[in-house]
């Protein structure tokens, strides 16, 4: 069964900490995405990548960065966590940037205290 795997289901971090969220896919997809999911706001695109070492800003990139050193892995980095980054983070991958639909991970619920 093909998958997108997010390394942590729940995380609790302190304000100011540097936080790494990891995502791995085994479908050889070129495109990978990070969204945050908040009630009433839906899914908002943070960053995406269409190739190794390539990245593009989404709609809400402030306070985040990403790393894609290998095709299967896409990491989201919170440089200095803040309480307004408490959210559900969803990783997804796709073979054509979304035209064929995404495969989502199960999500990481991050709480910043």
């Amino acid at each position, binding site marked *: 069964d093909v998958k997108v795997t997010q390394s942590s289901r729940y995380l609790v971090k302190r304000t100011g900490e540097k936080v790494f969220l990891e995502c791995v896919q085994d479908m050889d997809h070129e495109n990978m*995405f990070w969204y945050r999911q908040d009630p009433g706001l839906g899914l908002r695109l943070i960053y995406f990548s269409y190739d190794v070492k390539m990245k593009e800003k989404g709609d809400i990139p402030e306070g985040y960065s990403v790393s894609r050193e290998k095709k299967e892995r896409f990491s989201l980095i919170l440089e200095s966590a803040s309480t307004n980054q408490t959210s559900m983070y969803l990783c997804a991958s796709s073979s054509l940037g979304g035209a064929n*639909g995404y495969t989502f991970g199960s999500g990481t619920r991050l709480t910043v205290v």
Partner: protein
Amino acid sequence: AQRVTQPEKLLSVFKGAPVELKCNYSYSGSPELFWYVQYSRQRLQLLLRHISRESIKGFTADLNKGETSFHLKKPFAQEEDSAMYYCALYRMDTGRRALTFGSGTRLQVQP
């Protein structure tokens, strides 16, 4: 920029009643529209896409370019349809290769 609007946060219906989840979009180019669903404690998954013109779990959606809408419909709701539903748009004719999602509608089907 493109935008997807789902005007209802919550839609509550009784089992057997018809369901229509509304989705409107603003984009002047050629869109590809999708519906995604998230059942309780499960990951978000693709329900259907307009280009396939298929019916999944009894749901259908028609793209109306004149009204810029892609409403999701089912003639008879089932309790297992209770979930969070997201409408999403993909721009076919520009370089941004990512989906734009709406804010979601929670469907509650009561027995």
